[in-house]
């Protein structure tokens, strides 16, 4: 085969065969675009619109490169051919790329398990104000989860899902973003809203589905949304938000905004077809979007060993031509730095970035789940103690003299009071008016909905006992 490739006559025939298969000049120029590794501006080779000129140029390239190699005995790089997609060198060795690297992709962290800063750690410095707000919000998130979870157990809420163990991912990522960055969440990222100023009362209003809920009581608890805070409303369907985020990112790019789109999903979400679609689109459309994967080890009862056989999610970035990083998701400083850097690259270079945050889902999937049915209580307890994101960050914050036991207890008692009051008020507040069942299906209710509203109101008049009394008519 090597001999065959060396003959110039067959070379000519090969070139002829491939060149004439190309389509329009723009197609040809796209395939000749040469990108430098690790990002750098793409350089476009100038291409003649004349097919015969292109053929000749290609032949010249090919013959000159093969001529260079006749002087050394190396069998690789014998010839470089233009296939659609770019130049590839040939090799006569049959070699399969291994399914995995020998070493797993290392995980970036700044703090050790005990919250001590690692020597030589690189990170983006965080001011006292930001650090204290980050830690306080992590505590607030955890306490909010505790109290809402208990409320569900008491029958006051129909449903709840906690973010236990993932407080650093929630808060630190939000802290590293700007308020103009648009968020497309899955459902375990209320901390991003919290950071941006969503109040405990606003969370409670949505959970209780009362008339102050921006979602107008239409969805289950934890399906938050806020256009004011640039946080798109949660939908329970997995990974559907990923392609949406890419489109939104493209819009930000077209508008020249100093902002990116950020979307969150879990290890389970990376198995959905929408993950593939979104990643691929993001790369091709050069969209400024951050894909933040909370790899917490579990998709309800499904461990990651049943989810994929790759080295986690981080390695999938390269498959799409997307720059990626693996981070310790329970390390607030590492999360902050990774998201901060990723955001800069995404906006400045118009590219997507994949961040795989390794963490652990300490809580059950939701109040409809009892995870001790499929994993050991010991395992849960270990993660809760040994790798707790709050205690690690607290140690670091305190080591700077920015926090204390007193500050902690003040914060906790304040939050508890606020939460209980928020729930009390939310529970008492009446539900949204019945007309909100029919509004917003379209921008304006069409005839069939106007008719149906009349029928429903008649039914209510005839049988008021069938309907809840806390929904005003």
């Amino acid at each position, binding site marked *: 085969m090597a001999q065959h490739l060396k003959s110039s006559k067959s070379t000519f025939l090969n070139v002829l065969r491939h060149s004439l298969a190309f389509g329009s000049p723009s197609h040809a120029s796209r395939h000749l675009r040469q990108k430098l590794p690790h990002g750098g501006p793409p350089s476009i080779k100038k291409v003649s619109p004349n097919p015969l000129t292109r053929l000749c140029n290609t032949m010249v390239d090919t013959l000159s490169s093969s001529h260079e190699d006749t002087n050394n005995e190396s069998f690789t790089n014998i010839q470089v051919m233009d296939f659609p997609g770019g130049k590839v060198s040939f090799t006569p060795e049959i070699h399969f790329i291994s399914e995995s690297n020998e070493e797993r992709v290392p995980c970036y962290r700044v703090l050790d398990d005990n919250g001590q800063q690692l020597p030589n750690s690189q990170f983006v410095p965080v001011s006292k104000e930001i650090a204290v707000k980050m830690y306080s919000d992590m505590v607030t998130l955890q306490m909010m989860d505790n109290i809402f979870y208990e409320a569900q157990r008491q029958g006051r809420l*129909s*449903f709840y899902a906690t973010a236990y163990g993932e407080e650093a991912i929630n808060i630190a990522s939000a802290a590293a973003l700007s308020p103009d960055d648009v968020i497309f969440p899955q459902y375990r990222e209320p901390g991003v809203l919290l950071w941006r100023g969503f109040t405990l009362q606003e969370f409670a209003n949505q959970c209780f*589905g009362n008339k102050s809920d921006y979602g107008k*009581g*239409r*969805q*289950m608890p934890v*399906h938050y949304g806020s256009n004011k805070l640039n946080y798109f409303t949660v*939908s*329970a*369907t*997995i990974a559907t938000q990923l392609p949406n985020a890419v489109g939104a990112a493209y819009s930000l790019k077209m508008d020249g905004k100093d902002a990116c789109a950020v979307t969150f999903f879990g290890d*389970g*979400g990376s*198995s*959905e*077809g*929408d993950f593939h679609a979104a990643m691929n689109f993001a790369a091709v459309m050069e969209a400024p979007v951050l894909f933040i994967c909370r790899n917490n080890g579990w*998709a*309800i*009862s*499904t461990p990651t060993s*049943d*989810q*994929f056989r790759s080295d986690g999610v981080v390695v999938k970035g390269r498959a799409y031509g997307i720059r990626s990083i693996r981070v310790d998701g329970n390390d607030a400083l590492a999360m902050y730095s990774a998201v901060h850097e990723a955001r800069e690259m995404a906006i400045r270079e118009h590219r997507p970035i994949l961040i795989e945050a390794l963490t652990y889902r300490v809580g059950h999937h939701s109040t*409809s*789940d009892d995870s001790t*049915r*499929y994993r050991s209580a010991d395992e849960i307890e270990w993660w809760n103690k040994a790798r707790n994101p709050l205690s690690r960050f607290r140690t670091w914050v305190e080591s700077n003299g920015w926090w204390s036991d007193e500050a902690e207890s003040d914060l906790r008692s304040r939050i508890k009071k606020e939460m209980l009051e928020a729930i009390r008020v939310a529970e008492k507040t009446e*539900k*949204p008016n*019945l007309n*909100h*069942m*029919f509004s917003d*299906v379209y921008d304006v209710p069409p005839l*069939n*909905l106007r008719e*149906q509203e009349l029928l*429903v109101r008649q*039914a*209510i008049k*005839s*049988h008021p006992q*069938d*309907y*809840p009394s806390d*929904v005003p008519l």
Partner: protein
Amino acid sequence: MASLLGRFCRKLVVPGSAHGSRMISTTACDSEAVKSLNLYSAINQALHIALETDPRSYVFGEDVGFGGVFRCTTGLAERFGKNRVFNTPLCEQGIVGFGIGLAAMGNRAVVEIQFADYIYPAFDQVKRVFPTLEFDFSTAEFLIRGFNSQIVNEAAKFRYRSGNQFNCGGLTIRAPYGAVGHGGHYHSQSPEAFFCHVPGIKVVIPRSPREAKGLLLSSIRDPNPVVFFEPKWLYRQAVEEVPEHDYMIPLSQAEVIREGNDITLVGWGAQLTVMEQACLDAEKEGISCELIDLKTLLPWDKETVEASVKKTGRLLISHEAPVTGGFGAEISATILERCFLKLEAPVSRVCGLDTPFPLVFEPFYMPTKNKILDAIKSTVNY
């Protein structure tokens, strides 16, 4: 609730209906060993039997390994092994696509979609886009790919497109569907109408534990791909005497579960219990209602419904799914064609509203007993 379902059970034993040939001739409840089971246990039993009786059958889907989020697959992995009962990655198009492949190789693939609300990524596999089609979004077929392609474009057309050289009849897709009281947009949907529009698949919806076991076994063994929707509200709520042996209830045979003369009511799944209550109330006011469980929506048993409407002259259909484009419209149009001169009143549909399934407003959205009762009365008094 249990007593109502018990009545259904005993009804099956009583002979001498005008539709005797249509009545299910299943083994009598009280002559075989039966056990009081809820819906998820009955389904679990059917799955155990299916895997036991066919070594080339498989059960898989998200979280089925530990028993599933509704416990329908409890004990299967332990008993039949992880090669036959397993968790899949979180990907509905993958689950159904993979299932089609297994079925096409002569196996029975009983796949679980965790909630019917999530079935849409798999829809494309139901219907297949022809490979010569360009990327043209003005063509409906490509829109369907965005709307999940495995069920519509693959499963439904597998036998037809190959000239019967291949088929994926061994595929059964199970999914919990329907209102549950607090499910909101994404845990309450009734998507049966989308699938009833796809030639090549069957759509089956059981009303009770006993029915579910027999219908599921029939669906699994039917040589066509079947979409089997299970009313999640009934998983724990419905309890019934279920025979312990292997039995099947035929597909595409509707059942008259309550006889009457003044009006025919047609429904399926959990809605039948609501309709049954309306029938009882109507009876107190002197209206005699005939209630039919359609069971199989595609292909549906037109003959039974037609015979009933020719007797009563009135038809009312009720389903949770939104009224516009719901399956009630198909039943109404067909009966109109076949029974026009016998009809004393327009066909009535008491259904869900044309909105996404709302959380707080669920009680207003649902086709309640009283909405049905009012419709029965206005139809009878037309």
